[in-house]
């Protein structure tokens, strides 16, 4: 049968973000594909070299519309490391609380997209409804649902008081009950199992060769999590499990993320129980001494990498951002080979695409 190339995107109903794909098919079989990024390239790395450190916090918050908080956290940690500024423990815990809430809503968003792609619209409705519970908490404590403006160099710009706790605990409790039901459905729903089990498996070796991390790697049995392996406070004081599965297929990627929501809920409760008293920020100087540092953190999609070099002024001399989606996108054409045409949406959704993150 002859080969046909189908262009998908950059604007396409299947994808919410602009990404151009060319998929080669022969009959119902996918032979491979290629990608073209850059439709939401904003030149953030270059812009950062013309902004001061305070302005750059707001710039990196806009790398991603889903995991904006982990970007500002990682950037601030890099600057604080160069400043040798010790962040108050309460601020570290509050940052981690936001990071875990972000992971919960990011994973729920992704589960909804996957469910919609395989035709389970009810699960899509439920997960996106439940996601609001996490977003409501973030909005309540920081004032922002998507862009939180929560971080500053030296700490955070918000604090919790007694009035916040009932709402936070109530929403976490509701989320916990919803996730239990959701996991039950995900593990037993025949339609989902049929659409995801054994689809596009990826080996551990391939994961390493492509530098993939996060839930996609953990679903292939690669036991890696920057919160545990390369912990920045307060993760060195928090106990949690790293969820892995050996299968490496779209099914494993679904279950790993769903289980991770449960782990993040545990972490949120642990953080709230252990929340230290004290101040939430320290005053930081505008100029950052000469030096360079690398910070690796665990974003909802995996290893987030920031390289920052300062030449002693109030502007970064070089800021390099590597988002986890970039590695996962590089792997996508490999996952696309030797699958059925009907599996394309499942494989695409399985990566948990964030094109804005990849483009920067």
């Amino acid at each position, binding site marked *: 049968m002859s080969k046909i190339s189908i262009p998908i995107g950059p604007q396409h109903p299947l994808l919410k973000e602009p990404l151009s794909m060319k998929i080669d098919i022969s009959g119902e079989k996918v032979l491979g594909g290629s990608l073209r*990024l*850059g439709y939401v*390239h904003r*030149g953030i*790395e*270059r812009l950062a*070299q*013309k902004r001061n450190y305070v302005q750059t916090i707001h710039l990196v918050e806009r790398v991603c519309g889903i995991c904006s908080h982990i970007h500002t956290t990682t950037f601030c940690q890099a600057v604080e*490391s*160069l400043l040798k500024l010790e962040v108050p423990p309460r601020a570290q815990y509050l940052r981690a609380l936001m990071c875990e809430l972000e992971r919960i809503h990011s994973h729920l968003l992704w589960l909804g997209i996957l469910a919609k792609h395989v035709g389970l619209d009810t699960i899509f409705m439920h997960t996106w409804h439940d996601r609001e519970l996490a977003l409501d908490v973030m909005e309540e404590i920081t004032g922002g649902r998507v862009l939180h403006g929560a971080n500053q160099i030296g700490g955070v710009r918000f604090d919790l008081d007694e009035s916040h706790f009932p709402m936070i605990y109530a929403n976490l409790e509701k989320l916990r009950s919803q996730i239990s039901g959701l996991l039950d459905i995900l593990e037993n729903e025949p339609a989902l199992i049929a659409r995801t089990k054994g689809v596009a498996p990826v080996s*551990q*070796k391939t994961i*390493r*060769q*492509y*530098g*993939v*991390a996060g839930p996609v790697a953990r679903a292939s049995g690669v036991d890696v999590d920057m919160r545990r*392996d*390369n912990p920045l406070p307060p993760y060195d004081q928090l106990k949690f499990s790293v969820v892995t599965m050996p299968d490496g297929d779209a099914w494993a990627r679904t279950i790993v993320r769903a289980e991770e929501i449960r782990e993040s809920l545990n972490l949120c409760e642990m953080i709230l129980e252990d929340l230290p008293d004290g101040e939430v920020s320290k005053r930081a100087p505008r100029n950052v001494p000469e*030096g*360079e*540092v*690398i*910070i*690796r953190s665990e974003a909802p999609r995996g*290893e987030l*990498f920031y*390289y920052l*070099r300062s*030449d002693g002024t109030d502007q970064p*001399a*070089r800021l*390099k951002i*590597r988002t986890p989606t*970039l*590695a996962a*996108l*590089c*792997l996508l054409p*490999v996952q696309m080979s030797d699958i059925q045409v009907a599996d394309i949406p499942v494989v695409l959704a399985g990566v948990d695409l964030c094109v804005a993150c990849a*483009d*920067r």
Partner: protein
Amino acid sequence: MDKVNFEVLREQIDSLVGSKCEVYDAIGNDDALIIPSERLMDVVALIDQIFDGAHLTTITAQQRAGQHNLIELMYHFYQKFAFTIIVRLPAEAPSIASILSILPGADFYEREVAEMFGVKFTGRTETPPLLLPDDWDQGPPFIRKEVIDE
């Protein structure tokens, strides 16, 4: 593999290269080694062999203050511990071997360095634009220091 740390790795790289590579200890949280650019492929192959698949996080390109005639490429690895391999290229005509044959995941990183810094990667067919438009033709590469400072 579990017993490999940066010191062990450095010794093996020194023995491969045939001379003592300079340790660069100014990067917070990462150990780094400056190697001759022509031995990059051999060193990456060694890392890949030692760890049975090297995890390359990314490639950072940059020009340091006062050294604008050099482009520095930093290959950041993470294998239970973080380390960086550094090569320095002349900014005039920067060229280096592509590591794509060993680590196919380096594709996007090499393409980004090629378009943003004008580095030529040899041994691969082409480096099509990754982030900039296909018809981008507005002078020297996008993140070169001389372009930013204009």
